[in-house]
């Protein structure tokens, strides 16, 4: 059923439709509305879940880990400082192989205090072993939550779903909510083989010497590899129910493009609009939206960009001392395989608005430029 809702509430309803059993969360702008809505949903009896009102985000993730270790489906949501405070426990969830799904509203890291959109918070978690999705619409947020439980519970890895502060979190738009009966058909109850079970007492996470630790990492990496296929497979299953397909990357008019933008989050949506306008001006451009960055969709990207002659990556983030993270990861993946020149752009850092005109400027600059540049800080005031 179509409804209007803000992006944050799409996350809440995604959790509700997934029948999460334990929720542990802590307020932080601009995420808070997700848990407020969930509090309401639980109070209204629309979801049978236990809500743990923890005293910090570190504890929120810990409580989810504990619950998930018993075989319950657990959910949390946070943003920026809260996600950073969870950092240790994100590694934990991943290494403990617990299929927790969580939402992060991308917000700039402090100091100075900022509550505005910026991907540095979640991208700083790229080495924790979590799967990581960037949603670009409220529909994407809701659907991704459901699909992620399905994938996570098969590969036994947690998933982090991120989306831009305000541009999505506080923006109301139209969302199609699948009936829960359909979702139930898609997403069976979670029932793991290894769990805290008094009838089969095991310890979890004991001292692991150099004799075994490496092999656990190996298994994790295998799980990530498996996830690439599973995301596609479950995406197709989901499409059967809802007509909506989600892949690791989505390409828009890339087939014949000379210049391909590589984008994520809300910038990806605005870029689609820009692509249309640029095409009208006769410029052959395309947009490759990276939806999933862990597992990294190397093959999908290679396929999508193979015919173009230039790539312009737009990063709403920076790994200071290197450069934009999407650009870095893309180049790392294309190396050995391709020699299409890649330009790296920064835009929208700290919540600065990225407009259609900004994207068009980037296109112009890239078309004109002869030599690729690692990082161009678009729109910075010097």
């Amino acid at each position, binding site marked *: 059923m179509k409804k209007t809702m803000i992006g944050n509430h799409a996350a809440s309803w995604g959790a509700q439709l997934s029948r999460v059993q334990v929720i542990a969360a802590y307020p932080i702008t601009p995420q808070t509305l997700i848990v407020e809505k969930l509090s309401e949903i639980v109070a209204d009896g629309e979801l049978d879940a236990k809500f743990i009102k923890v005293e910090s985000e570190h504890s929120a993730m810990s409580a989810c880990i504990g619950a998930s270790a018993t075989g319950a489906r657990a959910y949390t949501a946070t943003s920026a400082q809260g996600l950073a405070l969870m950092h240790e426990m994100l590694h934990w969830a991943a*290494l*403990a*192989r617990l299929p927790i799904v969580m939402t992060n509203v991308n917000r700039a890291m402090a100091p100075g205090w900022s509550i505005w959109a910026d991907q540095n918070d979640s991208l700083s978690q790229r080495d924790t072993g979590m799967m990581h999705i960037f949603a670009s619409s409220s529909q994407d947020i809701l659907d991704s939550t459901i699909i992620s439980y399905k994938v996570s519970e098969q590969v*036994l890895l947690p998933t982090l779903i991120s989306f831009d502060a305000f541009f999505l979190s506080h923006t109301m738009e139209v969302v199609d909510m699948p009936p829960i009966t359909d979702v139930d058909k898609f997403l069976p109850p979670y029932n793991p083989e*290894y769990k805290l079970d008094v009838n089969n007492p*095991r*310890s*979890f*996470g*004991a*001292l*692991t*010497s150099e*004799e*075994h630790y490496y*092999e*656990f990492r*190996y*298994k994790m990496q295998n*799980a990530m590899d498996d996830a690439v296929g599973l995301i596609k497979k479950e995406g197709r299953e989901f499409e059967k129910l809802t007509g909506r397909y989600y892949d690791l990357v989505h390409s828009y008019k890339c087939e014949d493009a000379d210049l391909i933008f590589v984008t994520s989050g809300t910038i990806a949506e605005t870029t689609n609009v820009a692509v249309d306008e640029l095409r009208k001006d006769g410029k052959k451009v395309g947009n490759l939206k990276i939806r999933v960055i862990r597992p990294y969709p190397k093959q999908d990207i290679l396929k999508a960009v193979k015919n173009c002659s230039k790539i312009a990556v737009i990063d709403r983030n920076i790994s200071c001392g290197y450069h934009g993270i999407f650009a870095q990861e893309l180049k790392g993946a294309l190396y050995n395989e391709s020699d299409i020149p890649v330009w790296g752009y920064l835009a929208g850092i700290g919540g600065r608005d990225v407009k259609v005109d900004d994207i068009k400027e980037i296109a112009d600059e890239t078309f004109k430029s002869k030599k690729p540049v690692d990082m161009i800080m678009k729109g910075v005031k010097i």
Partner: protein
Amino acid sequence: MLIKFRTDKKGVKISGAKDMPPMPASLGLMNWNKTSSWRNLKPIIDYEKCIDCFICWKFCPEPAIKIVDERPVIDYDFCKGCMLCAEECPKDAIATEVEGK
């Protein structure tokens, strides 16, 4: 590790990732690990003196004292030789021997 991980004891045999669960979940108990090798001193119960008060049993941290036929019996496979039992025995019924001498 100082303590050898004898992954082939007690039926837990791991030759590689394929034998391992996805996460470090235990597959067996520690009691393959005969801690007798830690022992310098050896407690010896003098059953003549012993009044079966089970104070030694009560306090043994391993536990390495069992109750066999209603009497305290030290399991030397596990006794680490802390000598707590001897110290607490109200009847001084536990003697101390030096290992390997």
